[in-house]
Each structure stands twice: as structure tokens, then as C-alpha cells.
């Protein structure tokens, strides 16, 4: 029964992907990747939350509380929540830069801003290569979660086949309708995922009582942070909140919006959507109290769903979780394609960009699948690692918004040094007194950016925040 419901819902998502194309039979690169900047608040909202609350939310978040205790969930809640006020102020400017420079990718912003600057190409390549490199773990995160979500259906199929099937679906969405497909499928995904989480949480509550759930989980679930945990939590929240919209697909999704006001208007509702998290916390604590010894902590949510829900509802849960992963894969693919064809290669004519991008996307999906199967790990660890890289774009992004004397080579040097150090610190387990490694490297990045720019000379570029501002007070005032 679960399988039938699951199959019907996935089929429905394919219908939506096809329907998304209706009336937009254009083959232009801009329509394919950023919907020609036509989306209103409603679609931008769903596209954004669709790719923010991924399979890492429904599978990874309860899994991490289950594995590491109650205190571990706090940074996850905090950084997503704080990302929204940051976004309220920064994202309209990112959109403005996108419009000014006719951007499709995050790297296009830097390319456009420094087009008359000798170092512009170096910075464009730095951002491009960093973005692609750190999108690989993000894809791995989705595939890892998909294996767990599909595992709940109880099929006896090898993970390799499951993820290949998932990759084929994600590829199919975008080949049909470009970025319009994830936007429309996101509506279905978000309804299903919300239902899945609320129903599973509700079922856990109906088994016992709210106060018993938190009590039964016992000392395992203590949510008191020790001093090192507190340092980790605070630095990670601040670091990832500013890095959130530096994720290349999040940036690209902003470009689909009609206007700056569309983005502000939608942004203020975003935190309300987090209402699902209390239910995820309940499920995690319920599992800790009743089944404290799951062999795979990532499976905590699905295991609860399997125990508590009737078969058909399990199909809904699996479909919601799977669509969450599939959407993000589609989003990453739509980001990677143009990053390679527009920014990495540089001279591909626009009419060829789309078909070449599809080949790149296939290669990316194949590579991510291989990594997933070879190196399974706790999902949230992968997520943290990816942020080490993406957040390093933030100082450069601020520089093109506000810093007249910003030098592209200084920005590039900051990104490269910080990324290399972050990965080196992480791999060699260099002690940072429990502060987030990426945050420590971000400070080095900022120092290089400012120092280098001031030393480099006097070529100035009008900052984005000051452009076309005749009728608008300078943003950030």
C-alpha cells in the first residue's frame, strides 16, 4: 500500500513538472535557469522553502538530535531562523546586482561587477570552482537522505539502484521545464512534507504524552549546552546564517523574482514556516525514549514513521521526504549547469549553453552518486562542511554591495585562503577551541579582502547598493 501511494504521488510530481512548462515554450537560457525573472512572491516563496527544507531537514535534523543529544538541534534551528532576517536586508541587493549584471549564476554577479577590472576573470573562476566543489557534498547529502527515505518503504533494492532512480527523476524534472519544474513541484513537496512531519509527530504524541516524551528521553536528551557546545553553537549559527543565501542555488532562486519588493515581502513570512520543527523535535525525542539503540541514527525519523503510521500514510511520508531530496538535486543541477557553461568555460554561445549544461548535470549526478555510495556519513556533518566553503563568498558579496575600492584579486585571495584553511583544519582536526572552523577562516578572509583591496590601488567600482538609488534610500541605512 505504501508503495502504491508513493508511486501515485511521484507520478503527480511529474505531471506538475510537465504542467509547469505550459505557456512558456521558450528555449532561452534565462527562462530555463531563472524563469526570465517573472515569478511573483508565491512561487519564489515555494521555490525557496522547497530547496531550503530539504531531505536534510526531515531526515538529518531528527537524526542528529538522536545521535548527539538534545543540545545538538539548537544550532540547526538557530542558523536557519537567523538566515531570514539577514536575507531580508541582503537579498534585495543580491537581486538588484543580478538585474544590473543580467546574472544567471552567483559567479555572474562578480563577473559583471568587475567587468572592466583586470582581475575580474580570476574572481569569477574562483567563485565558480569553489561553488562547484562544495555543491558536491550538498548533492551527497541529498542522496544519503534519499536512501534513508526510500528505505522506509521496505523495498529490497540496492541503494545504488535507488539513487540512480532518484537522479533520473531529478534530471527529468529539469529537462522538461527548467527551473519552473522545481517551483511547481515544490508546492506538492511542501504540502506532503508538512503533512508527513505533523502526522508523524502527532502519532508520537498520541502514543504517550508530551511531557512523558521529554522525560523518557532522559539524560540522553539533555538540552543544556556545555561550554564547548555553546561556543560551537553560537559561532555556527552566526556563520551559517550569513552563508545561507550564498548557496549557489539559493542565490539563483532569488533571480527568478520579479522585483526587490517581492523578495522583502516573501522573506518576512519565512520564519513562520519553521512551525514543523517542534514536531521533528518530538519525533527525535520519542525515538530516544522508546528505541534508543537504532544502528543508523539517520533513520530515526523513518523508523518512527514505520512504527507509528498505517501503510498508506507511510507512502505519503516517503514521498514527501523523497521529493524534498529530489527538488534540491534539481536545484543544484540547475546551478551547476550554467556555472560550468557560462563561467568556467566562459565562451560558450548562449544557444548552446542549455544543452551543454545538461551534459554537465548528468556528469555531476553520476559523480555525487558514486561519492554517496563510497562514503556514507552522518548527514549534518556533510552539511557543515559545505558551509565552510559557501560562506566565504559573503565578504566578497558585501564588498560588491558596499565597498567602492574592493579589488577582485583581494576577494579571490580571501576566498581561496579561507577555503583551503577550512578544509585543512577540518581534515587535520586542528583545534579551534570549539569555534566553528569556517567562522575562524572567515575572519582571515575578511582581513585579506580589506587589506588587499586597500593596498592594491585605486581603481573604483560603484557599489551595487548605491546604483539606481535616486528614489531609494541607501539600503542598509
Amino acid at each position, binding site marked *: 500500500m505504501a508503495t502504491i501511494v508513493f508511486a501515485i504521488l511521484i507520478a503527480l510530481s511529474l505531471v506538475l513538472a510537465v504542467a509547469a512548462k505550459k505557456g512558456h515554450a521558450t528555449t532561452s537560457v534565462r527562462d530555463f535557469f531563472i524563469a526570465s525573472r517573472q515569478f511573483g512572491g508565491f512561487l519564489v516563496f515555494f521555490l525557496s522553502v522547497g530547496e531550503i527544507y530539504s531531505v536534510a531537514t526531515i531526515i538529518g535534523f531528527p537524526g542528529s538530535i538522536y545521535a548527539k543529544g*538534545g*543540545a545538538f*538541534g*539548537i544550532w540547526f*534551528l*538557530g542558523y536557519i*531562523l*537567523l538566515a*531570514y*532576517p*539577514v536575507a*531580508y*536586508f541582503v537579498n534585495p541587493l543580491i537581486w538588484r546586482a543580478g538585474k544590473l549584471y543580467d546574472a544567471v549564476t552567483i559567479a555572474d554577479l562578480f563577473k559583471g561587477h568587475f567587468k572592466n577590472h583586470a582581475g575580474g576573470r580570476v574572481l569569477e573562476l574562483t567563485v565558480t570552482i569553489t561553488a562547484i566543489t562544495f555543491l558536491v557534498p550538498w548533492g551527497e547529502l541529498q542522496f544519503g537522505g534519499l536512501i534513508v527515505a526510500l528505505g522506509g518503504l521496505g523495498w529490497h533494492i540496492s541503494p545504488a539502484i535507488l539513487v540512480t532512480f532518484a537522479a533520473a527523476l531529478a534530471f527529468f524534472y529539469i529537462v522538461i521545464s527548467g527551473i519552473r519544474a522545481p517551483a511547481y513541484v515544490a508546492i506538492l513537496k511542501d504540502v506532503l512534507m508538512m503533512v508527513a512531519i505533523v502526522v508523524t509527530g502527532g502519532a508520537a504524541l498520541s502514543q504517550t504524552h*508530551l*511531557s*512523558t*516524551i*521529554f*522525560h523518557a528521553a532522559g539524560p540522553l536528551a*539533555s*538540552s*543544556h*549546552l556545555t561550554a564547548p557546545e*555553546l561556543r560551537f*553553537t*553560537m559561532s555556527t*549559527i*552566526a556563520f551559517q546564517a550569513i552563508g545561507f543565501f550564498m548557496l549557489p542555488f539559493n542565490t539563483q532562486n532569488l533571480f527568478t523574482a520579479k*522585483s*526587490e*519588493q*517581492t523578495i*522583502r*515581502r516573501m*522573506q*518576512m*513570512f*519565512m*520564519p*513562520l514556516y*519553521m*512551525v514543523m*520543527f*517542534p514536531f521533528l*523535535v518530538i519525533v527525535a525525542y520519542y525515538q530516544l525514549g522508546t528505541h534508543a539503540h537504532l544502528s543508523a541514527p539517520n533513520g530515526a525519523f523513518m523508523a518512527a514513521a514505520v512504527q507509528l503510521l498505517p501503510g498508506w500514510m507511510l507512502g505519503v511520508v516517503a514521498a514527501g521526504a523523497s521529493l524534498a531530496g529530489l527538488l534540491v538535486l534539481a536545484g543544484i543541477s540547475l546551478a551547476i549547469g550554467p556555472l560550468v557553461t557560462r563561467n568556467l568555460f566562459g565562451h560558450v554561445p548562449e544557444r548552446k549553453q542549455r544543452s551543454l549544461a545538461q551534459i554537465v548535470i548528468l556528469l555531476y549526478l553520476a559523480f555525487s552518486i558514486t561519492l554517496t555510495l563510497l562514503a556514507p556519513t552522518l548527514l549534518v556533518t556533510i552539511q557543515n562542511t559545505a558551509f565552510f566553503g559557501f560562506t566565504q563568498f559573503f565578504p566578497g558579496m558585501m564588498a560588491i554591495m558596499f565597498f567602492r575600492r574592493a579589488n577582485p584579486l583581494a576577494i579571490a585571495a580571501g576566498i581561496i585562503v579561507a577555503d583551503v584553511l577550512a578544509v585543512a583544519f577540518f581534515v587535520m582536526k586542528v583545534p579551534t577551541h570549539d569555534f566553528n572552523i569556517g567562522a575562524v577562516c572567515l575572519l582571515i578572509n575578511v582581513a585579506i579582502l580589506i587589506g588587499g583591496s586597500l593596498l592594491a590601488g585605486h581603481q573604483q567600482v560603484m557599489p551595487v547598493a548605491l546604483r*539606481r538609488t535616486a*528614489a*531609494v534610500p541607501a539600503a*542598509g*541605512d
Partner: protein
Amino acid sequence: MLRVLIGLGIPFIAIVAVLPWVNEATFTLFNIPFLYLWMFSWFLLTSICMGVCWLCFDRHRPDY
């Protein structure tokens, strides 16, 4: 400046800056630890902070 303080400053203070003190609170509701109660309530309160920014400062910006 007031706009940034309300929209960004207040949420940052609530979620990051005062976390060490929130962490020490022993209050619970239905055994739900205070740290979680605090985070959950800021889902709504953060939205309100941005809503105030929108209503008081940003609503009448020219839209392009």
C-alpha cells in the same frame, strides 16, 4: 539604522548573544526544555521583527 536594529539586531541578540543565559534557565513547560521553548517562540517573533520593518520602513519603496 533603526530599521536594521529592529529587523536584524533584535533577532541576532535573541538567538546568538543571549544564548549563554537562555542555556542556564531551568524553566520547562510540559518538560520541554527552555532552550527549545525560546527557539520556537522566536520563529514567530522574528517574523514580527521583519514585519515591523516592512510596515514602518520598506512598504512604500518604489518597486522595480
